[in-house]
């Protein structure tokens, strides 16, 4: 395995990207989950797909854009989607979850239209849907590195404000924290993370890498910092084991990573149960 990684650039790209994403997606995921925004992540990933398929279509038809990485369209769509979701949440104040199906169907609908307009990129689309080990380019890797730097800077700089905002939004506002501004930045960061993760795990499975490690972590941890640590550990385990399985068994990495995450989650839940039983006896 190590030999193969040293030998093939595409494998280096896939593993490095995977390790980076296995770190930032669950880290941000903790904030997403405790703020009950997991479904928003799902909606955004579908919007990202619309951006990417739109980008692929433009690649095909406009010569000047032929080498323009469709990830950029995905990022733009995702950010636009996050802004729209916020708008809709304000508009439907008392049914704010309505924003999610609206944006989600928008994303899927547009993707379906773009995919059927261009019937020549099925394998590309498969890669974006379920992830890929072989098609991650050096350029993709650099984009992922740049996004990771932005996400980590944001989380470090605003950690204490994000904690207050997640735990108690009214208190955050009453304390005079710029809650609206931080929330807006947070949504953009979520959009960026989704766009970055999609290359490896695929659009349909991004939200599982954001939520499953956190679900396991919350069963074990007492505090917030602990939850962050466990989530990253579980995320990295899922990505690394998942990528190795994908490589050897020639499967879509999105699938193997998510299946590994679910296995980890089940093990955590069972262990916790066993420990609790033991404590009771």
């Amino acid at each position, binding site marked *: 395995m190590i030999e193969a990684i040293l030998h093939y650039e595409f494998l280096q790209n896939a593993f490095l990207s995977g390790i980076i994403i296995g770190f930032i997606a669950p880290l941000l995921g903790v904030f997403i989950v*405790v703020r*009950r925004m997991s479904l928003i992540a799902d909606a955004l990933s579908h919007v990202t797909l619309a951006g990417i398929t739109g980008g692929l279509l433009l690649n095909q038809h406009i010569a000047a854009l032929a080498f323009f990485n469709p990830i950029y369209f995905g990022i733009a769509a995702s950010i636009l989607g996050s802004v729209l979701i916020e708008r809709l949440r304000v508009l439907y104040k008392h049914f704010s979850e309505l924003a999610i199906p609206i944006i989600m169907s928008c994303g899927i609908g547009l993707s379906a239209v773009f995919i059927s307009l261009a019937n020549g990129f099925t394998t590309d689309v498969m890669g974006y849907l379920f992830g890929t080990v072989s098609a991650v380019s050096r350029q993709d890797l650099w984009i992922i590195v740049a996004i990771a730097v932005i996400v980590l800077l944001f989380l470090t*700089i605003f950690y*204490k*404000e994000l*904690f*207050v905002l*997640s*735990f*108690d939004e*009214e*208190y955050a*506002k*009453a*304390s*005079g*924290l*710029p809650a609206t501004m931080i929330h807006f930045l947070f949504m953009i960061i979520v959009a960026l993370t989704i766009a970055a993760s999609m290359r490896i795990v695929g659009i349909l499975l991004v939200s599982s890498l954001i939520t499953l490690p956190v679900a396991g*972590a*919350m069963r074990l*941890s*007492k*505090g*917030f*910092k*602990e*939850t962050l640590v466990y989530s990253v550990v579980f995320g990295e385990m899922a990505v690394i084991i998942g990528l190795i399985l994908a490589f050897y068994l020639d499967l879509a990495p999105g699938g193997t990573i998510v299946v590994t995450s679910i296995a980890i989650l089940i093990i955590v839940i069972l262990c916790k149960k066993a420990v609790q039983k033991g404590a009771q006896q």
Partner: protein
Amino acid sequence: MMKTPYVELKNVSFTYESNPVLNNVSLSVEEGDFLALIGPNGSGKSTLLKIILGLLKAKGEIKLFGEPISDFQHHEWIGYVSQKSNAFNSGFPATVKEVVQSGLTKKAGLFKPMPKDAKQKVMEALKAVGMEKFINRRIGELSGGQQQRVFIARALISEPKLLVLDEPTVGVDIKHVQSFYDMLSELNKKHHLTIILVTHDIEAPFNQISHVAFLNQRILFYGSIDEYNLLPKEQIYQWYGHSVRAV
């Protein structure tokens, strides 16, 4: 020399959608005051506190520490315990320490880390409410009354000049209610902490309070505790009764 009041309201009115809640409320709270804000359910007490905290925008003139509320920046001077502070998601993975420490966020400032003595301050604030043994417990695993005391510690940790409490003792047992009120009056007397307390508590420390305001959409009474004690009981019952009919 006149001192600037900590809170000064002039003709403040507020309407939720089409439902008028406050009508020309004028009130001032000065340094060292311990004001009990009382009134029947739905009389607008929580709403008034939210207006003072800047959570709701109202008509009229509002000044905090002498500054119009729109220019006011020093929210760390105000500690707040809301009426439903323990309505948070009880599965939230945070320890008591993390929750109390988060009360320092505004004081520490944007782009700055928590102060180095944060841990020690958390300990002091928890001691003040008798919760120091629970410092490493998960917040959702405490009882309602214990959670409430943690939220009081979160409000105290930034050493505010003004403490705003909305029925803080709901769910707290008698023994701790008493020690909580003792703590408030000590903070008020020894440390000159100014306090606005919304309460339905008949047991409230009426001998330690300095002023009383009776609110029912408008201020029906405002005066010192001595003036309040001189009011005929029928008068107070009438104010409550009146509102019951209005509701």
